């Protein structure tokens, strides 16, 4: 029997046993449904809010001196929506109305040719000035079209659909936002799932050790294959569970609310998955080795401390480097295998690492995974059959009971 078949057999058992747990299935489905629900919230909100606008929104009041013909009324409504008109006597009366602090009127049209707007305090152009400018522009367009004898297309001009706008350049604010979003979510996601599945592996190992079934297994299976099968099986469960939890929601977002996904998220989402898988391989192997030292679930937490500390370090440095993705310490942490899955993802999301740095860090992490596999296998061999009190790491390393 080939080693591959054995490893697959062991991985297959892990997956089947997990799928048999109703709690596991329902938790996964529930989270998946909640995620889909969350991704639909913007759509639901917008459906209701459009109704609100139509029903509830108070028409703005605009002071008018003299007449306003239909074309100009349309031009005004194209800019402001439904409008109430408050006829006033002259320019003087209009400006008094605008400056009256009790009045909600902020705009006046004089004979369809002049626009008055109330002064706003503050350093920037306020919304009222902006509206006044666009109204003035619309009225000027109406003038121009009438002069050119093209009054019949006034309506079309006023309601014309703007051309699509493409934002380019490295400092695209949308992409920057996507980067910060992915960096924050990605670090939490990787850390949370790493810790969760690593502890599941350790529980599985303790179950085998505690129930002594491991003695039957090592008779027929080389321990390296036994360990690899468990790590692989749990990895498959992690991928499967994450797929069920996140893919439906992501699909809904892409189909229904495409506009809400900032540009650049897709690439970074893929990188998050890649860094998670690499990080998972590294940490789950470490945890498998450490977990083989204990026989009782209560001891798992303590024995995993070294791996947990490394992952926590990656988590915090990852978060910190969102603020300084290209600082020297971020670059260094991006190269170090235990912190790379967190920090390199952040650097790719909000910083500017070279392709060499990204690939180099991945290669280094892969080498570390091989190292972790060898070390874990050796500890595992020394620890897995010594049921009872916690085995000292040094003893397990030296003894290799098998």
């Amino acid at each position, binding site marked *: 029997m080939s080693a591959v078949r054995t490893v697959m057999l062991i991985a297959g058992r892990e997956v089947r046993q997990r799928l048999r747990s109703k709690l596991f299935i329902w938790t996964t489905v529930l989270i998946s449904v909640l995620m889909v629900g969350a991704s639909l919230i913007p759509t639901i909100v917008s459906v209701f809010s459009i109704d609100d606008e139509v029903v509830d929104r108070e028409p703005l009041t605009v002071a008018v001196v003299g007449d306003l013909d239909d074309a100009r009324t349309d031009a005004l409504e194209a800019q402001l929506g439904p409008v109430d008109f408050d006829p006033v006597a002259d320019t003087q009366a209009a400006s008094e109305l605008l400056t009256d602090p009790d009045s909600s009127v902020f705009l006046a049209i004089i004979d369809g040719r002049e626009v008055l707007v109330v002064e706003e305090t503050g350093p920037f152009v306020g919304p009222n000035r902006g509206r006044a400018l666009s109204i003035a522009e619309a009225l000027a367009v109406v003038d121009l079209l009438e002069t050119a004898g093209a009054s019949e297309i006034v309506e079309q001009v006023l309601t014309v659909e703007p051309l699509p706008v493409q934002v380019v350049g490295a400092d695209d604010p949308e992409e920057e936002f996507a980067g910060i979003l992915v960096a924050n979510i990605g670090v939490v996601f990787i850390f949370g799932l790493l810790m969760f599945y690593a502890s599941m592996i350790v529980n599985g190992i303790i179950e085998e050790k505690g129930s*002594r079934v491991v003695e*039957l297994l090592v008779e027929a299976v080389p321990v390296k294959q036994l360990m690899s099968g468990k790590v692989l099986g749990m990895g498959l469960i992690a991928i499967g569970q994450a797929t069920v939890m996140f893919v439906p929601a992501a699909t809904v977002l892409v189909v229904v609310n495409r506009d809400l996904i900032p540009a650049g998220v897709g690439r970074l989402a893929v990188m998050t998955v890649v860094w998670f898988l690499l990080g998972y391989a590294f940490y789950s192997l470490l945890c498998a080795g450490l977990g083989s030292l204990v026989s009782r679930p209560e001891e798992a937490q303590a024995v995993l401390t070294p791996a947990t500390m490394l992952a926590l370090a990656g988590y915090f440095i990852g978060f910190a480097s969102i603020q300084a993705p290209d600082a020297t310490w971020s670059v260094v942490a991006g190269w170090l295998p235990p912190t790379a899955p967190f920090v390199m993802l952040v650097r790719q999301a909000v910083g500017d690492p070279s392709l060499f740095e990204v690939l180099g860090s991945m290669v280094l992490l892969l080498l570390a995974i091989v190292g972790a596999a060898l070390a874990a296998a050796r500890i595992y061999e020394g620890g897995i059959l010594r049921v009872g009190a916690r085995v000292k790491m040094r003893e397990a390393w030296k003894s290799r009971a098998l």
Partner: protein
Amino acid sequence: MLEFRDLYRSFGDVIALDGLSFTVAPGELCGFLGPNGAGKTTAMRCAVGVIQPDGGSITWQDGPIDLRVRRRTGYMPEERGLYPKMRVHEQLVYLGRLHEMATADAAASASHWIDRLGLGDRSDSPVEELSLGNQQRVQLAASLVHDPELLVLDEPFSGLDPIATDVMSDVLLERARAGVAVMFSSHQLDLVEDLCETVAVISKGRLVLGGNVAELKASRGRRLRIEVDGGTAWSQRIGVDAEVVSVDEVGATVLLPPGADAAPVLDIAQQQGRLLDVHLEQPRLSELFRNAVGTTEDTLGDEFQRRSEVR
């Protein structure tokens, strides 16, 4: 042939195996005996490759016990071990497949052993829901499912009720007759005596008695119990060939050396008076066991004393 040759293994300061040597042939059902702490479990774990000896060798058919051999070996560990939440049939199929069986073969074999061991209605129950006795039957099935050519069972009879004991005995005999080399450890000496053709008795990590049970008994001699009218004074007149083991108010027991004739002793006793009761019996295995295990302690004591004297 399973051959233990000069096996050594220590755990820290404790010497578990101290030059253990013996063999189990295909078709042989060998009872592996010894007091607590004699090294039985360590020897069996060495035989299935779960631990490595410090010195000496174990071979099967003159080759090392490698993975290929281990997958043709059935093992029942001292501490029973199965996945508690896995169902009986599923678990046996899984273990069968780990021992290189095709899925269909493993399923058929699992069903066969489940029926054979009287677990038919528990086939789809998780192991943890079974009684301890039934769990032990599953454990036996787990060691048999891949049709091994070598069976190494650590105390398979402990905790079994009489019916389960019969089932276990039948299965072990059947396997041995099918050509499997079977070794199992036990403290139930009478059961071993009835069941096994051969025994290996170890003490302090080395073999103190081993071989065919009938021959071992014969080599120890026979006991002759005689009661005659007129007391036991005759027992002081028997020759050097026989040894008086015990004397009570009505009679005496004499140990006859292997091959010795009982007639001269009977003659002497009959001169005392009319024969009331006579029986000639072979020694029990338990007697051989106590003798063998006790002897080593004496020998070690003697050896220690000799060494002290040399100094």
